[in-house]
C-alpha cells in the first residue's frame, strides 16, 4: 500500500517536471492548431460568401440578357454586372461566361471592336481550354465581320476543341469565300459537312453554301 502511494507521488512529480519543461510549447501548439482550424473555417466562409455573391450577380445577368428585347437601361445594367463579375470574381468560370455574354451584347450593338476585345480578354485570361476555343471561334467570326479574312484564318489555326471542328471548318470556309479562294472554301465546307455528319450535329447552311459554290465543270 505504502509502496503504491510512493509511486503515485513519484508519478505526480514526474508529471509536474514534464509540465514545466513542455507545458508552454504544448499550449502554444494547441493555440496554433485552434487558430488554424478557425482560420480555415473563416476562409471557407469567406469563399462561400464570395461564391454566392458571384452566383447572384451572374443569375441577374442571365435574367437580363434572356429577355426578348433588351432596353438600353438593361444593357447598361448588364455591362455593370459583367464588370463586377470580372473584377470581383475574375478567375471563376462565371467571369469566362460573362465575357462570352459581353461579346454577344457588343455584337448586338454593332460594336465589333468591343466584341473582339472581350473575346481576346477571355482567351488571354481563361484557364479553360473549351471556353477559350469557343471564344476563338467567335473571335474569328467577328474578325471576318470586320473584313479581316486573313486574321480570321490565323485565329482558326490556334487551338480549338475537337468537338467544334465542324464549326471551325464552316467559319474557315466563310473566310475563304470572302478572300475569293473558292476552291479552298469548297474543301472547307465539304470538311465541315463530313465532320458534322460524323458527329451527328447538323450545321445550318453548309450544304447551301457548298451548292452555291458549284464548280463550272460539275454536272
Amino acid at each position, binding site marked *: 500500500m505504502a509502496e503504491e502511494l510512493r509511486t503515485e507521488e513519484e508519478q505526480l512529480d514526474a508529471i509536474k517536471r514534464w509540465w514545466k519543461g513542455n507545458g508552454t510549447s504544448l499550449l502554444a501548439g494547441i493555440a496554433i492548431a485552434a487558430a488554424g482550424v478557425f482560420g480555415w473555417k473563416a476562409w471557407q466562409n469567406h469563399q462561400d460568401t464570395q461564391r454566392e455573391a458571384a452566383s447572384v450577380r*451572374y443569375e441577374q445577368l*442571365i435574367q437580363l440578357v434572356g429577355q426578348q428585347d433588351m432596353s438600353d437601361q438593361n444593357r447598361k445594367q448588364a455591362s455593370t454586372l459583367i464588370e463586377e463579375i470580372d473584377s470581383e470574381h475574375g478567375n471563376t468560370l462565371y467571369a469566362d461566361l460573362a465575357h462570352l455574354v459581353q461579346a454577344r451584347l457588343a455584337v448586338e450593338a454593332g460594336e465589333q471592336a468591343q466584341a473582339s476585345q472581350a473575346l481576346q480578354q477571355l482567351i488571354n485570361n481563361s484557364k479553360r481550354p473549351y471556353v477559350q476555343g*469557343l471564344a476563338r471561334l467567335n473571335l474569328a467570326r*467577328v474578325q471576318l465581320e470586320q473584313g479581316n479574312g486573313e486574321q480570321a484564318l490565323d485565329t482558326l489555326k490556334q487551338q480549338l476543341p475537337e468537338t467544334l471542328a465542324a464549326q471551325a471548318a464552316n467559319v474557315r470556309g466563310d473566310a475563304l469565300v470572302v478572300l475569293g479562294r473558292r476552291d479552298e472554301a469548297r474543301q472547307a465546307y465539304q470538311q465541315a459537312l463530313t465532320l458534322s455528319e460524323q458527329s451527328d450535329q447538323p450545321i445550318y447552311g453548309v450544304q447551301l453554301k457548298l451548292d452555291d459554290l458549284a464548280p*463550272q465543270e460539275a*454536272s
Partner: protein
Amino acid sequence: MLQRIRDRSQGWIAKIIVALIVITFAFFGVESIIGAFTGDSNDVATVNGEAIKRQDVETQVQRAIRSGQVPPEQEREARAQIIDQMISRKLLQQYARKGDLAFSDAQVDQMIVGLPEFQDQQGHFSRDLFVNRLASAGYTPASFRAQLKEDMVIQQLQQGLASGSFVLPSERERLNALQNQTRTFRYAMLSENDLETPVTVSDAEIEQYYANHQDAYKRPEQIKLKYVVLDQNDMAQDRQIDEATLQQAYAERRSAAPRQVSDIIVNYGDERSESEAQARIKEVQDKLAQGADFSALAQQYSDDSSKQNGGDLGVVTKGIFGDKFDQAVYSLDEGQVSQPVQFDNAYHLLKVTNIDVPSFDDMRADLIKQARLDAAKQAFQDKAQRLKDESFSADDLKSVANDLGLTLRQSDWLSQDSANDIFAEPGVMDAAFNDDVLNRDNVEQGYNSEVIELDDQRRMVLRVSDYRPATTLPLEQVRDQVRRALETEKLQQALTERADDIVASLRQGEDVALEWKKAQAVTRNEHPDVDQGIIDAAYRLPRPDKGSTYGHTGVEGREVVIALDRVGQKEDSDAASFIASMAERLQAQTAVRGLSESLRKNADIDRN
C-alpha cells in the same frame, strides 16, 4: 461477450481503434465508414473518380416510370439512357464546381418559395403543398434541395454558353440570301424513246446476270404445318345467358364506373378549429335533411373554389383523392349524399351526381359477350390442360384433334421470316423452327410443339408436316424476273450515257430536241409540281454567267436533264426572321453540346 469487449477495450489496441473511428467520423462523416465496407458493387459507373450509385439510378428510373415518361416495358433502354444522362450531368457538375460555380442555400430557398408548383391559390408558398408534391415525386425536402442545387449550377453553365452565342449580321444576310434564293430552270425527262438504239437483252446476258446476283434468287428453308387452335370464343358462342346474370354484370360495371362528384369542403386549421368545422358540416347536413339544395349549400358553405359550380369536381376515377374519398364515393348511388368524411384537414360531404356508364341496352351486346366468355372459362381451361397433356404424349396431332373435337388444319409453305396471318403471331414460328419440333433429317421424327399461348383466349399446337431446305432457285423458274431486273439496269445505264451526251452537246451550244418543262423562280423548299430531287439537282448546278448551265440527275429510276437559266432572290421577311432565330438557336445548342462532348472525351469513365 459484452463483458469481454469491455475488458478488451481497456487495452491500448482497442483505444487506438476507437480513436481512429472517432477521427474518421469527425472528419469524413458516417458515409465514409459505411462506404468503405459496401464497396464498388453499388456503383454503376465512376466519372473522374466520382461514383454514380446504383440506388440513385434506380430512383431516377422509377421516377420516370411513375411519371409516365417511360412505359414499363422500356425500362431497360430507359435505364441505359438515364445512366448516360447522369454521366453527362456529373461531368458538367464537376466542370462547374471546378470553375467555382455554386448555388447557395439561400438561393435555393428563394427559388423554392418562388416556384408556382408550391404555391397555394393565393400565390403564397405552402409548406404542405411543398412536402406533398415532393413526396408524390419521390423526393424528400433534403434530396430535392440537393438535386435543385446540382441542376441550377448546370443550368447556369449552359445558360451562360447559350446567352453568349450570337449570329453576325453578315452571316444572317448570307444564310437568308441562300435560303431564299430562287432558280429558274428547264428540265426534261428522258425515256426509252430518247435512246438512239433500244435496250436489248440476250440470253447470255441473262445467264451472266443470274450468276452475278445469286443472292437475289435464293429461297430460305421452308416448312408446312399441321395445327390446331383452341379458342375460348368458339366455345363461348352457344352458351345460354339468362337475364339475371346480365343485370348482375351490369350492376358490377356500374358500381366500378367513374362518378361525377360534388363536394362541400369545410376546412379546419387556420381559421377554425376541428370541432367548429364538425359543427358547421353538421349544420349543412341538417339543412340537406330538411330538403335544401346541395349545390346552393356548397356555394354557401364550401371553402373550396369548386363552390362556384355548386361543389362539382367533375368526373372522378378511383385513386385521385385518396382512399377515404373513394370509399365514400363508391358506396353511394346516383343522387345520394355521404355522411361527413374527414381527410386532408377538412370535413367533406360528398354527392354523386352522375355515374358515367352507358345504359344497359347500349352495353347489352358487350355484356353478353363477356358473360359467355366467363361461362366458357372453366371448360376452356380444362380443355387447354387436356390439349397440353395429350399433345405432349401423342405421336401425331390428328388423334389429339379428334379427341378434343378440334379441326386439324394445314398450312402452305412457310419460311421463318415471311409468315403471315396466325403464323405471324409471336411465338408461332419460333415454336415451329424449334429443334424438337422440326427434324430436318426426317420430318416424321419431329414432335408436337408445346402449347403456344397466342393470347388469353387462344391456344395453339402445331406439328411440321413437310420441309424443304434453303436453295437457289433455278434460272428456268426465275427467268422473267431476271430479265426485268436486267432490262431496268441496262436502260438506266443507257439513259445516263445518253444524258451525258445531251449535256455535252448543250454545253457546246448545240440544239437538242427535248420536251422541256419550265420551273419559274423555284425556291429550295417544296414545289407542288416539281420533284424535290430535280430541285435539289438544279440547286447543285453552277450559277450561269451568261446563257445557261446544264446537268442531269437520276430521279426515281428516270434520268432528267436540267438547264439552269437564272438565279434570283425572293423577299420574305417572315422567313428572314425565322432563319435568324434558327441560326441563333443552333449556335447556342452547338456551344452547349460541344462542351458536354469535350468533357466526355477527356474524362475517365469506368462503367461497372
